[in-house]
């Protein structure tokens, strides 16, 4: 919906108005601020300039006073010095002497001119000969000013009386130049000094150029004039100091440019953005209203406008936006409700007209107000014939008054009644109906109408009778079949119990044999384990097994072997393997066998296998091996294993070219112990001796029991040098000899007697021989044995090396 034409034609955007007013405000603000800033800046400058000028005046007043005093003192000083020299007392030489005096004393640097006048005022001495200098002072004047006519230079003149001997008291005049140099030295940095005498510039701290300079008037210079002395004719000292600007021109330019910019920014951010936001929100409100006016719907565009209007604070605009949205929604909903109601009325009318069921509507007094065409078809009455009638006219008289009383009671209590009723048509034929009566209420809950639905149930009543007959027949059939099923079920229960019993027997048998079984079904990828298999693997029977879980239980060192065997089995090879598994930290040995079934293409169908716990068998095999290679008493390798190790050491010697050594040991003084205390104590000594021997050699060396009290120690991989190898073997042999020579404390208990400790001394005779790969084990042993006999021969508890020559 467009805005009214007259309004639209005059319409001006609120945001535009806001921008214009903002711009005008900003402009006025900037002008006011700039003007105020400029005024303040100028006032600050003026104040600073005045203060500085006042300071400068005070400073130069002080400096000029000092200068005057200094000049006066210098004049008196020179007077005193000249009088001291007494040069002036001799008119013949005074001039030359005084000139030399002034030259050496640096008079030229102090005065521009120095005159000495006699009492008649005649010049007796002039320091300089150039210029036109004379006494400018009046009677009784001790100082004054003199402007030299040829150069126009100004001088401060000081007069002092001076003693001239026979000539009496004369006068001396010192002329101090008020020149550029003086002002240059007086001027502080940035300050220009100009001496003005009788309104004419006579000297400047800037030099001759400065004499022109002072005529330039400028607001940037603060100028003050100061009388040199209090005398009327005294020159004026003009002090020019640049007005110290707080900011340079560049800074001012930047500042002048920046102030409006910054002001604009501040105003924009402080007010402008807020104002723009509000105008946008108001504009959005307008847009929302326009959108609703145009479409009469809560469109996404309207919602977007409402959201824009709501943005920001919860304020009046926000409230208006909420109200507009609510109003629009309510309007739309009401319209929809209206449309729905109309639609429903149309629908109900259609239903009423086209319904196959007979419908009758009465007013609250039970007078028929409407019937549908189906009613007219069923009863044969036209609508005009029944309007205003009581539905009682349709009663065939089969129902009793109590029936109707209950019906009306139900309608009043529940607003609803349903039941079977017999009515007659216009022709007087009675028909059964399923009738539903509902009461219709107004908003106040008062009954306004009753609506009755008639459903002809003549056909249904016939069908119900037929169904009843079929059901009775079926029930008879089911009863017969049930008896047969119960009989069959009894037989199946018996067979099932038998199967369960057989399976339990199988489990027991597997447990006895420690033989578990498993079955692999590829079709459903399941691995079935028997109870015994779970027990062997130490797993609970509810664990669902697979190949990976099985592999986890396999000993780490055997996993590869098992997996390779299984992969081979999958290729059709027999699966029969013994390996270790780890159950609760303990190692078990199992033997696994399997038979796998494949289809014609070689794909695995299923498999069945056994797992047998063979741990005990393996332990027995290990014990047998121990008995075959180790001495059962000392647990040392026996002669058989020694031969094997000796063979290995000779092979190693062949590879490394290093010597090995073999020691043949025989315990001295062993037999008396056996004879005295019996074989049990002798066995204890042999065990102790074996332990001492093991402690004396390296891990790679072999200590074997050769038989009785004879031991063999084999040292391998000693050195390529024979002498060094001999030395190493000797060191170890000595270590052994020393270890075995220590006393033995043997503790034994004889039947029911208390424990007893026997101390026994026992030494050893050791025969040593070196060997390499070129010899036979027998010859090596023989050489060591011979060397041992030599040791015995030489008094026992000895070590003897086999000597080839002997």
């Amino acid at each position, binding site marked *: 919906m467009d805005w009214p034409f007259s309004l639209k034609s005059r319409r001006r955007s609120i945001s535009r108005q806001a921008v214009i007013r903002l711009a005008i405000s900003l402009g006025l603000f900037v002008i006011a601020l700039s003007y105020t800033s400029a005024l303040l800046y100028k006032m600050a400058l003026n104040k600073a300039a005045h203060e500085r000028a006042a300071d400068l005046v005070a400073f130069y007043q002080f400096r000029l006073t000092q200068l005057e005093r200094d000049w006066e003192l210098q004049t008196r000083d020179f007077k005193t010095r000249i009088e001291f020299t007494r040069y002036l007392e001799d008119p013949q030489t005074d001039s030359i002497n005084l000139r030399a005096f002034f030259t*050496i004393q640096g008079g030229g*640097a102090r005065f521009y001119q120095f005159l000495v006048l006699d009492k008649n005022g005649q010049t007796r001495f002039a320091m300089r000969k150039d210029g036109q200098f004379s006494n400018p002072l009046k009677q009784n004047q001790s100082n004054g000013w003199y402007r030299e006519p040829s*150069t126009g230079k100004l001088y401060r003149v000081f007069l002092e009386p001076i003693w001239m001997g026979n000539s009496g008291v004369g006068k001396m005049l010192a002329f101090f130049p008020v*020149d550029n140099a003086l002002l240059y030295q007086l001027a502080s940095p940035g300050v220009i000094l100009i001496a003005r005498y009788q309104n004419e510039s006579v000297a400047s701290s800037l030099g001759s150029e400065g004499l022109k300079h002072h005529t330039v008037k400028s607001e940037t210079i603060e100028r003050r004039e100061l009388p040199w002395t209090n005398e009327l004719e005294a020159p004026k000292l003009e002090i020019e100091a640049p007005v110290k600007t707080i900011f340079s021109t560049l800074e001012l330019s930047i500042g002048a440019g920046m102030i409006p910019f910054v002001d604009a920014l501040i105003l924009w951010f402080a007010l402008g953005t807020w104002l723009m936001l509000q105008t946008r929100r108001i504009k959005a409100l307008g847009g929302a209203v326009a959108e609703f006016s145009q479409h009469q719907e809560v469109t996404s565009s309207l919602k977007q406008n409402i959201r824009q209007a709501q943005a920001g604070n919860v304020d009046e605009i926000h409230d208006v936006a909420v109200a507009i949205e609510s109003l629009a929604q309510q309007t739309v909903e009401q319209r929809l409700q209206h449309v729905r109601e109309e639609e429903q009325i149309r629908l109900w009318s259609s239903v009423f007209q086209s319904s196959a069921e007979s419908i009758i509507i009465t007013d609250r007094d039970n007078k028929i107000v409407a019937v549908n065409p189906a009613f007219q078809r069923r009863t044969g009455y036209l609508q005009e014939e029944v309007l205003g009638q009581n539905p009682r006219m349709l009663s065939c008289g089969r129902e009793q008054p109590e029936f109707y009383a209950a019906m009306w009671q139900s309608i009043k209590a529940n607003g609803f009644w349903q039941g079977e009723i017999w009515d007659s048509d216009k022709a007087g034929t009675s028909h059964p109906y399923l009738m539903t009566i509902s009461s219709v209420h107004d908003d106040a809950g008062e009954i306004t109408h009753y609506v009755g639905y008639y459903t002809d149930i003549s056909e249904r009543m016939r069908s119900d009778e037929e169904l009843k007959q079929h059901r009775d027949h079926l029930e008879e059939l089911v009863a017969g079949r049930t008896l047969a099923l119960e009989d069959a079920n009894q037989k199946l229960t018996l067979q099932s119990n038998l199967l369960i019993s057989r399976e339990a027997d199988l489990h027991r048998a597997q447990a006895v044999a420690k033989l578990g079984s498993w079955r692999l079904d590829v079709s459903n990828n399941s691995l079935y384990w028997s109870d015994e298999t779970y027990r062997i693997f130490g797993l609970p029977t509810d664990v669902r097994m697979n190949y990976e879980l099985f592999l986890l239980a396999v000993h780490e060192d055997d996993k590869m072997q098992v997996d390779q065997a299984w992969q081979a089995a999958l290729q059709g090879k027999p699966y029969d393997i013994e390996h270790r598994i780890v159950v609760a930290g303990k190692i078990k040995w199992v033997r696994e066998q399997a038979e796998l079934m494949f289809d014609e293409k070689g794909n695995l169908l299923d498999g069945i296998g056994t797992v047998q716990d063979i741990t005990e068998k393996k332990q027995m095999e290990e014990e047998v091996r121990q008995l075959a290679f180790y001495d059962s008493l000392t647990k040392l390798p026996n002669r058989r294993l020694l031969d094997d190790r000796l063979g290995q050491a000779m092979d190693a010697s062949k590879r490394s070219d290093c010597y090995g050594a073999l020691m043949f040991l025989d315990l001295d003084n062993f037999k008396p112990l056996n004879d005295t205390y019996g074989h049990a104590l002798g066995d204890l000594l042999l065990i102790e001796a074996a332990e001492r021997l093991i402690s004396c050699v390296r891990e790679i060396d072999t200590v074997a029991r050769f038989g009785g009290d004879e031991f063999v120690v084999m040292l391998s991989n000693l050195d390529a040098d024979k002498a060094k190898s001999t030395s190493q073997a000797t060191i170890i042999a000595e270590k052994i000899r020393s270890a075995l020579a220590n006393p033995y404390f043997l503790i034994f208990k004889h039947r029911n007697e208390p424990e007893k400790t026997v101390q026994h001394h026992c030494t050893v005779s050791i025969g040593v021989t070196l060997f390499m790969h070129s010899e036979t084990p027998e010859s090596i042993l023989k050489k060591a044995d011979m060397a041992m006999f030599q040791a015995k021969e030489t008094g026992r508890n000895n070590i003897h090396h086999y000597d080839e020559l002997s």
Partner: protein
Amino acid sequence: MCQLGSGVCLNIKIYATGDGMLIKFTNFVISALLISLSHAALAEERIVVSVPGPKNISYLPIDLIQKLGFDRDEGVKLLLLHTGGGAVALNHLITRNADFAVAGLPAAMSLRANGGDVVAVAAVDDAPLFVLMVRISLKTKIKRISDLKGLVIGVNTSTKNSKTTSQQLAELLLKSGGVSLDQVRIVPAGQNWEEQSSLILSGAADAIMGDEPFASRLLAEKKVFFLANLSQPESVKNIPGTHFLHAALETRSDVIANTPQKVEKMARMLQRTLKWIASHTPEDLVAKLEMSNADERSALLVSLKKYRHAYSIDGKFSTRQLKETEIFFQSSSEGDSNAQALRLETMVDDRWIGRSH
């Protein structure tokens, strides 16, 4: 209203009525004449030159400028400020009493080394003319430099921050003769006849590192004898850089920057004067100076004839002579780090005069 460059304003009204065109024309001509005359008079530029002297032979060209009228040719009012030494002249320059100074270049270097703003713009001399003269009464005692121990020696007056060339030379001579500076008393002797002669005649000084023609005049009057003469190589053979450039025209950098026309005019006046001297006889020069004192005139003529090549012929700097000057200055200022670091080229501006080899 007419605003003139000098700042003086003349109110000129030209009436253009119908009758009296002649009167109007006459008024116009007179007004124009007045303007031009006033402008000429007011435009006369004032140049102040501080220079040792007067009538010191080393600085005579400056005295001659006015006599030759070259200042008027340039529209310049030349004011000479005579001082007792180059250092004092330089002090007048840096304290703004003068626009230019004519002083010994070594003295100017001494000032520059002490922070003074001084720039050399033209050469005045060609040969340094200094004479170490001794009172005649000491002739029997003083035979060589080493005999000066215990005496009073006068030199051109130095200042606090600049040592005159004369003093630098005297110190070098004394050192070369084995006399240390604490074995003599050095006093200022000025740089004109009155000062130098008075020191000798009064006995205030026993010897002076003096200038010509005063030394020759005192010699002629038998008041002194010469112990060393810079123009005689055998007497200064142990002094390095004895062919240094003595008198030169110097100014400040602000004068160059603010009033370059002044420098241009001053350099041109000096150059013309030097060329005049080179093309005239000593007699012409002395006559031009219009000296009233006969003795003074005579002494100057003797000196000018004696030192025929005392002056630069064109004011150009000589690279060789600048090198000699630097050597002399470095030798005379041993132990002074600022002086040793100073390079003469940094204070020479030859744009107006030029340079020769």
